[in-house]
């Protein structure tokens, strides 16, 4: 009995480690909520941002870091999307996962985003969203459910991503 009681926590640890390898967030699932410190590009005011508060909007959640090359490529595109569809109820929230805030600040000076930037140096939000690659993005509908997920950022991704944003906003061709 003693041995069993000794080994069971060990087994539980192994199982929980295995459960960590579960699949990522998929289409149709409700997006996990987060509440993070953020800066708004328009007002440059810092205030916490949460996904629940953005309910009713189509939200594009993007995970980025200053050391990630494709992230740098995605920023001008996200700027473009925000300016084009912001008035139609679209919001980009780019969550930074840099450990050092100064790294993110340098990146932001170079890219000048016009959307919301949230900061999660502890990495709990990418854990919640089960991010598999950098950058990763999640398109979340007005009902708070995940419409599309995307990993990486290449030139060829621009138009299909924009297409899914337009579809989520109900914009006809």
């Amino acid at each position, binding site marked *: 009995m003693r041995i069993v009681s000794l080994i069971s926590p*060990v087994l539980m640890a*192994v199982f929980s*480690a295995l459960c960590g390898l579960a699949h990522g967030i998929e289409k149709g699932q409700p997006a996990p909520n987060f509440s993070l410190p953020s800066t708004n590009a328009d007002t440059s005011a810092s205030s916490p941002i949460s996904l629940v508060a953005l309910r009713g909007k189509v939200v594009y959640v993007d995970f980025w870091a200053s*050391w*990630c090359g494709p992230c740098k490529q995605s920023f001008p595109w996200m700027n473009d999307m925000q300016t084009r569809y912001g008035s139609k109820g679209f919001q980009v929230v780019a969550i930074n*996962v840099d*450990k050092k805030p100064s790294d993110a600040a340098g990146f932001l000076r170079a890219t000048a985003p016009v959307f919301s930037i949230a900061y999660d140096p502890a990495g709990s939000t990418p*854990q919640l969203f089960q*991010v598999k690659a950098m950058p990763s993005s999640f398109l979340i509908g007005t009902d708070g459910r995940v419409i599309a997920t995307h990993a990486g950022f290449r030139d060829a991704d621009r138009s299909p991503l924009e297409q899914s944003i337009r579809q989520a906003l109900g914009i006809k061709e």
Partner: protein
Amino acid sequence: MKDANESTISGMQLRMDCFRTAYTLGLMVLASACIGCASLEPVKPWEKGNLAKPAMAFEGDRLELGFAEHTYFSKEGSTGGNGVGGGGCGCN
């Protein structure tokens, strides 16, 4: 006599207890040795900031590597660089 008997029993019990403790401790050490590395979490995609630093690359300097490779395959007479069979015309 009675007292002596009791003391031997408690002595044996003590020894049994010691043995059990040693056994369970040994098991714990064995278990932790077995899963020691398995419980190490791999680096998460969002934690690769340090791995992305230039100092972590295989080659220190890409330009220098280019020169070194050029010298290498010129001397070897096998265009195409390392690891892959080249033309071998020696014309570089």
